[in-house]
């Protein structure tokens, strides 16, 4: 909100520089966000927090300045009270208030024979200092009172009211109105309007209608000052898409006493500036403001702030904020809250008032006793391990958005789960939640490849989201993407391949001593048909890895690179993960390594043979490694040559040559049987 320094000084004698004042106010919670010299004035831009509607006026700010600087405020009371002798007009009107719930208090006064014209210079200056354009004397006066007291007013051209009647009522369904700003709005019964006998003449608390606007031809005016229900104004303002200085204040709640003060203030100003005869004020609804008291002890204040504050200081601060204090018994205060401070409802609210005037900087720093207790952060430790391995494997951590376009999300939804849509997206980019990180990581890969970054190796540990019946599921996954060069140097250039990806996935999973990891051929449409696999843990699918289909990456502007991509459900991994494993004794007896070379059908997965061998003699065969795969010359068509290295070891004794040979021969025999292998 803008505040003119010159205007402010009308109510309080400020001796310090504007910059210093700005600092003082900021440190008391009334934040001055900027200062600007304009002509002979200084304009403060202030951030008014929503709990302080009483600060939405010059006098409200003057009161705060008075508390902060411990200075009296001076306001000429007589300018705010219309007395019986001022009421010289005799025109009459009927005001009917139908919906007291939406408008607890409505006041109106006719001022007859006014002279509409330009405003005097002082008034124009005030209006312009608030960033508005001067319109005419009557409108300027209503705006002046709005800024001075924070109470919005509206002046109608009285002669345009049909049958001299004014009704505060709900709009009829589909009732339309043309507002002063030229826009037309259609209303519903949820919206409160001010109407005459046959048409709405204002949307209550938001804006007046064109049909009763005060113009140069206006002779008699009807001046409105009211309290409108904040929620109702807020809803209507949002519904019709209009926010005004007036609605802004009604939404936050105006001070009921100011309904009268602003009405009287404007009346007197209009009489003095525009001439005219005010009539008697018409009041509909309830007019009393509620007064509240709060009891608070010095001990509670001290305990909450961690200091020992003097009673005199407490009392002085309360008084400066127009709170009257009585000390009931020793150090128990009964504080009467002024009606304009609706934000003060519980004892801590008063503590904030004390400490903000006392000064936050006067509270010492202290470190509390630590709570202690067990720190179980299993998941965090697991994630930390994955981070370390991923980095060790040369991957850059990426963070991508959790949302994306719906059509892309559907294309990549390889787990076939129900996608969560955003009810109020801002753009296509946040239409729905991701059910996989893969499309987002692919976007990042594309971003890099299209910016001459030739080596892209990314990982992300983040959440995916989907619906499962009525439940909204959120789980953490690890996603990896590789594309382009693995290394590019004098030593030779290497591009990433499927096995680089698989190796990284295996390295990650090995961190958690989860043993039963298997890879099975899969058929996801996002991947190339022949290079993809499901990752299984204890027989349960926990992820995928593969090469993105050419068609798919083309739609992401990638032409000449393969993109290798994996995604692992970490929730499943964490379920089986072991962080503190037991030490396994180092074997005391030597091992013997024997190789075996066979020719089998090319469709047999090498690893299925390796695990077959391992399982045969699991006690004596420690390790089976695939050491060579060959297809081509000297090997029959549709066949492949595979070589395995088998490590034999007995933990209890040294194996003799004879024992090993016997074992090895039986392996060969079983391979011939099981896989129709030809031993080379």
């Amino acid at each position, binding site marked *: 909100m803008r505040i003119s320094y010159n205007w402010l000084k009308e109510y309080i004698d400020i001796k310090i520089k504007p910059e210093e004042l700005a600092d003082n106010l*900021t440190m008391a*919670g009334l*934040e001055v*966000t*900027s200062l600007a010299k304009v002509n002979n004035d200084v304009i403060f831009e202030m951030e008014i*927090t*929503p*709990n302080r509607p009483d600060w939405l006026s010059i006098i409200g700010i003057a009161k705060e300045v008075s508390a902060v600087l411990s200075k009296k405020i001076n306001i000429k009371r007589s300018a705010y009270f219309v007395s019986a002798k001022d009421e010289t007009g005799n025109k009459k009107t009927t005001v009917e208030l139908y919906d007291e719930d939406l408008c607890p208090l409505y006041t109106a006064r006719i001022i007859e024979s006014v002279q509409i014209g330009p405003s005097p210079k002082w008034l124009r200056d005030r209006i312009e200092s608030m960033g508005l354009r001067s319109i005419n004397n009557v409108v300027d006066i209503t705006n002046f009172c709005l800024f001075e007291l924070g109470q919005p007013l509206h002046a109608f051209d009285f002669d345009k009211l049909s049958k001299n009647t004014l009704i505060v009522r709900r709009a009829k369904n589909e009732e339309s109105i043309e507002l002063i700003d030229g826009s037309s709005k259609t209303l519903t019964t949820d919206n409160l309007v001010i109407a005459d006998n046959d048409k709405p003449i204002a949307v209550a608390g938001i804006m007046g209608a064109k049909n009763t606007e005060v113009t140069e031809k206006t002779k008699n005016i009807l001046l409105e000052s009211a309290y409108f229900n904040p929620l109702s104004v*807020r*809803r209507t303002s949002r519904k019709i898409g209009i926010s005004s200085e007036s609605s802004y204040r009604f*939404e936050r709640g105006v001070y009921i006493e100011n309904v009268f003060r602003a009405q009287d203030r404007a009346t007197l100003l209009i009489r003095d500036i525009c001439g005219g005869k005010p009539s008697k004020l018409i009041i509909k609804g309830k007019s009393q403001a509620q007064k509240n008291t709060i009891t608070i002890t010095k001990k509670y204040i001290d305990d*909450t*702030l*961690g200091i020992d504050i003097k009673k005199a200081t407490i009392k002085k601060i309360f008084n400066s904020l127009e709170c009257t204090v009585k000390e009931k018994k020793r150090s128990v205060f009964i504080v009467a809250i002024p009606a304009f401070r609706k934000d003060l409802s*519980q004892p*801590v609210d008063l503590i*904030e008032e004390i*400490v*903000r005037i006392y000064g*936050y*900087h006067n*509270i010492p*720093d202290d*470190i*509390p*006793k630590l*709570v202690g207790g067990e*720190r179980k952060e299993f*998941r*965090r430790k697991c994630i930390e391990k994955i*981070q370390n391995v991923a980095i*060790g*494997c*040369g991957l*850059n*951590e990426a*963070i*991508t*958005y*959790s*949302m994306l376009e719906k059509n892309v999300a559907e294309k990549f939804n390889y787990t076939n789960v129900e996608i*969560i849509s*955003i*009810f*109020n*997206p*801002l753009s296509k980019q*946040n239409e729905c*939640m991701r059910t996989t990180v893969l499309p987002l990581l692919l976007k990042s890969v594309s*971003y*890099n490849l299209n910016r001459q*970054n030739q*080596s892209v*190796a*990314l990982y992300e540990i983040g*959440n995916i*989201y989907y619906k499962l019946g009525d439940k*909204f599921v959120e789980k953490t996954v690890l996603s990896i993407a590789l594309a382009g060069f693995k290394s*590019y140097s004098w*030593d030779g250039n290497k591009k990433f391949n499927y096995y680089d990806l698989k190796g990284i996935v295996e390295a990650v999973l090995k961190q958690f001593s989860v043993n039963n990891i298997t890879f099975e051929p899969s058929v996801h449409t996002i991947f190339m048909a022949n290079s993809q696999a499901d990752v299984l843990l204890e027989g349960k699918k926990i992820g995928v890895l593969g090469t993105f289909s050419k068609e798919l990456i083309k739609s992401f502007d990638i032409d000449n690179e393969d993109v290798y991509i994996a995604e692992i459900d970490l929730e499943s991994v964490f379920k089986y993960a072991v962080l503190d494993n037991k030490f396994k004794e180092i074997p005391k007896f030597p091992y013997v390594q024997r190789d075996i070379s066979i020719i089998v059908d090319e469709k047999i997965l090498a690893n299925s043979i390796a695990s077959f061998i391992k399982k045969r003699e699991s006690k004596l065969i420690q390790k089976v490694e695939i050491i060579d795969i060959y297809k081509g010359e000297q090997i029959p068509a549709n066949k492949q040559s595979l070589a395995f290295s088998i490590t034999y070891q007995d933990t209890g004794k040294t194996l003799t040559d004879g024992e090993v040979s016997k074992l090895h021969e039986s392996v060969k025999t079983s391979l011939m049987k099981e896989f129709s292998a030809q031993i080379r």
Partner: protein
Amino acid sequence: MFQELDKLEKDFYQELENTKTALELSDIKTKYLGRKGLVADFLKQIPSIAADKRRDFGSRLNNIKKSIADIIDEKEKKFSKISEHFFDISLPGSNYKVGTRHPITITIERINDIFIGLGFKIIESPEIENEYYNFQALNIPLEHPSRDVFDTFYLEDPLKKDPKYKRLLRSQTSTAQIRAMEKQKPPLQILAPGKVYRPDATDASHSFMFHQVEGFMVDKGINFSHLKGVLSKFLVEMFGNKIKTRFRPHYFPFTEPSAEVDISCIICKGAGCSVCGQKGWLEILGSGMINPKVLKEVGYDSGKWQGFAFGMGVERIAMLRYGINDIRLFFDNDVRMLNQFK
């Protein structure tokens, strides 16, 4: 005479040991085995040796000659392999690329580390929330201007009635406060980093997704002075002990009294610059004493337990620490950027 042969052999081995290059080796070869070399000298002496010792001397000399020749031969082979090819030690080492953590992760971990040192425990809290945890439980009335700053993505029709079943994406990590307090009894010291979402149009300083760290502590006798102590300590650890801090009153529905915490601008040192908007101060934290209404909502007796809470934006801190001027850079994942953070 035999002693001289011993000396010959000994000298040879010594010289050989000091030989570093093929050139030196060739010199030694000439010196010992050359036509006018040392071995040849001894051969010439054979006729003058006493007849009874001549045979032994000759055979001994022959053995020496042979072993010298063998050893030189062997050494020549070695030298020809290594030193005759030039070895370029300037070539880059083999490629062992080490990856990087995202600057946001690094920043969160740094924040975590400091608070772990102060006794806090790190927890995770859901990103998909409902209205109750995001608003009501935090004393944010649904239809009130104080909600305006918390614009929110809804996952279900916001017109549904029951707030516990009106799902949304959390717009602040304070939800973790309620979740944790519902589950655990005090005392508590908790830090909850994570993603939050707000329907803000994307530009250099706004993103519809960003990260926050929420922290809070509840115990008997926790007061405002503790809030100041803990947060001042954090700021010094995070930004160095040259910064100045200031706490100033503010309004948050879930804390009372509330404080916004500023540090002197780390770019201009408080003189005023474009980063701090000429103010000399940077807003880093929102904080306050947990509102008794919030404690009551989770069933804590506010007469017995008090607490403070705070929250901060991670992107903002990372941008300040690294001098990054566009929030969108964090989510482009350009490897030329990512590679800069170790």
